[in-house]
């Protein structure tokens, strides 16, 4: 139906596209959706990702053919440079560094949105080419959205990357008046945005907007602790989708809108899942500043004289007589890169007919599903990686639960309705197992900064040491035993 009251047919860069281009875009949208549907099972996931890549290739090729490309050299050079960098990064990165890599890629997507929206603005309103008699409002508002969200995404992602990579301090950087500063920055950005909408020919305003939004992006992420970065990255992932969709509104391009909104939805859902698994609100993550390690005065009291420490040999003996062992990995396994030793122990146990399963908490590690990726890399069957709801009822029949570098996700304090930061967070009930072996370097707390009474429980043995070293010792001891 042709809107009569408010005609918004977009002239501008994409005005002359033929029907076959739109048809190809529709096909690639279907490929993206099919690709994401493929991710609903490990069996179909590889093919799903390939379908997504195919959709992208189709969209790119069609666009290249459709555009009367003037300077092929620019296009070729840009794509070639980007592809090489992307491929090298993707192929050389360690699996443990996956969170920061996704964050970085994410930022680049945001940067691209800023630049594209800026270029379109210049083209339509600055240079005067193309001409936008109608639909100015859609274009200008969408451009402002692209620039704002894109810049927050780019700089926010860079900070998140820096925090995870250790370039920027992991600690939450907090200061008085923090929230006010952020609100002022946002208000300033919106004000400039309105100016642009009112007079889009002032192209320089756009860059001012981008500058303010960049600072906002930095100020939004810097006060958040390193352990919360996964949530930030998921949220920024959603933003990068929104920025792409906004760019789609700028260009009246369906494939940008569809792909962008798919990604926007995906990021929001992952963010929600993580928040729910930690029993925290998103607002608390973004503005609450949990993540500072609070010194817990009562720690001495909790553990005093009740902690039993153990050795590789003792654990190996206990394992020899076990029938069912559950391994619970956490952030410490990723830090220590102990996953190879985990696989070796699993193989050794299974050779003796012992049943081995893994209990994976949804927020164990640094990213949702992080443990699964690390263990999958070691060729451990995804059948053995059990979600919280599946593994919890089985701890009662488990002889040994080995907790490797996990802390908060097994802290029974979460079950008590107290005022502790993790109260109400669903946990893995390892304490129900006959024997619990905890491998970590010290009695120091995990991310939430609170003591863990599990360490002092009667059926708990503490095996102190670096995750990898301890697991290697354990594998050797088990083989000798």
């Amino acid at each position, binding site marked *: 139906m042709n809107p009569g009251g408010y005609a918004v047919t977009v002239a501008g860069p994409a005005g002359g596209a033929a029907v076959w281009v739109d048809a190809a875009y529709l096909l690639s949208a279907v490929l993206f959706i099919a690709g994401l549907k493929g991710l609903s099972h490990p069996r179909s996931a*590889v093919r799903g990702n390939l379908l997504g890549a195919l959709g992208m290739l189709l969209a790119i090729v069609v666009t290249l053919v459709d555009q009367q490309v003037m300077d092929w050299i620019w296009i070729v050079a840009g794509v070639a440079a980007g592809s090489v960098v992307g491929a090298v990064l993707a192929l050389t990165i360690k699996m443990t560094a996956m969170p920061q890599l996704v964050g970085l890629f994410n930022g680049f997507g945001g940067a691209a949105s800023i630049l594209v929206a800026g270029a379109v603005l210049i083209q339509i309103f600055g240079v005067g080419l193309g001409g936008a008699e109608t639909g100015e409002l859609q274009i200008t508002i969408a451009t402002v959205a692209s620039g704002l969200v894109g810049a927050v995404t780019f700089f926010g992602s860079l900070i998140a990357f820096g925090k995870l990579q250790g370039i920027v301090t992991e600690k939450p950087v907090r200061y008085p008046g923090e929230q006010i500063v952020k609100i002022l920055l946002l208000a300033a950005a919106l004000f400039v945005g309105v100016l642009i909408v009112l007079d889009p020919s002032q192209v320089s305003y756009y860059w001012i907007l981008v500058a303010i939004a960049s600072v906002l992006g930095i100020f939004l992420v810097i006060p958040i602790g390193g352990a919360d970065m996964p949530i930030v990255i998921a949220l920024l992932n959603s933003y990068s989708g929104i920025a792409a969709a906004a760019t789609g509104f700028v260009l009246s391009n369906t494939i940008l809108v*569809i792909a*962008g909104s798919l990604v926007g939805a995906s990021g929001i859902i992952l963010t929600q899942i993580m928040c729910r698994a930690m029993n925290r609100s998103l607002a608390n993550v973004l503005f609450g500043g949990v993540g500072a390690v609070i010194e817990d005065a009562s720690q001495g009291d909790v553990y005093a004289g009740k902690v039993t420490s153990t050795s590789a040999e003792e654990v190996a003996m206990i394992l020899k007589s076990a029938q069912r062992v559950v391994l619970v990995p956490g952030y410490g396994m990723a830090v220590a890169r102990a996953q190879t030793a985990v696989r070796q122990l699993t193989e050794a146990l299974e050779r003796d007919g012992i049943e081995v399963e893994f209990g994976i908490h949804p927020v164990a590690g640094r990213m949702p599903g992080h443990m699964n990726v690390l263990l999958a890399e070691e060729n451990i069957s995804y059948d053995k990686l059990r979600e919280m709801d599946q593994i919890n009822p089985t701890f009662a029949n488990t002889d040994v639960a080995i907790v490797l570098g996990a802390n908060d996700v097994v802290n029974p304090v979460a079950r008590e309705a107290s005022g502790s930061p993790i109260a109400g967070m669903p946990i893995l009930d390892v304490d129900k197992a006959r024997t619990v072996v905890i491998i970590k370097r010290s009695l120091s707390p995990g991310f939430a900064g609170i003591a863990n009474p599990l360490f002092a429980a009667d059926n708990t043995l503490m095996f102190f040491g670096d995750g990898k070293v301890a697991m290697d010792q354990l594998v050797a001891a088990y083989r000798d035993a």
Partner: protein
Amino acid sequence: MSFLSILTIFVLAVFVGFEVITKVPPILHTPLMSGSNAISGITIIGAIVAASSGAGLLTTVLGSVALVFASINVVGGFLVTHRMLQKFKKGGPR
């Protein structure tokens, strides 16, 4: 295309996204994150349009730089997702 058709497409795509993504199991959440991130590199289409518009050196340069960023996102994203997903196997370690 009218604003409302594009808005309609947007709303429907958000619904599709929510429905499809909620079916992804936790085990695949990391690949989902990197894979959907790769899809957000669709801005590469916009970058091509901008870089090839011939509206002046400035837009060409802006478009080309956007092209570099977007290509990193797309190529890196799909590749690293592929690398991860290939590892997910059924059956015991050999």
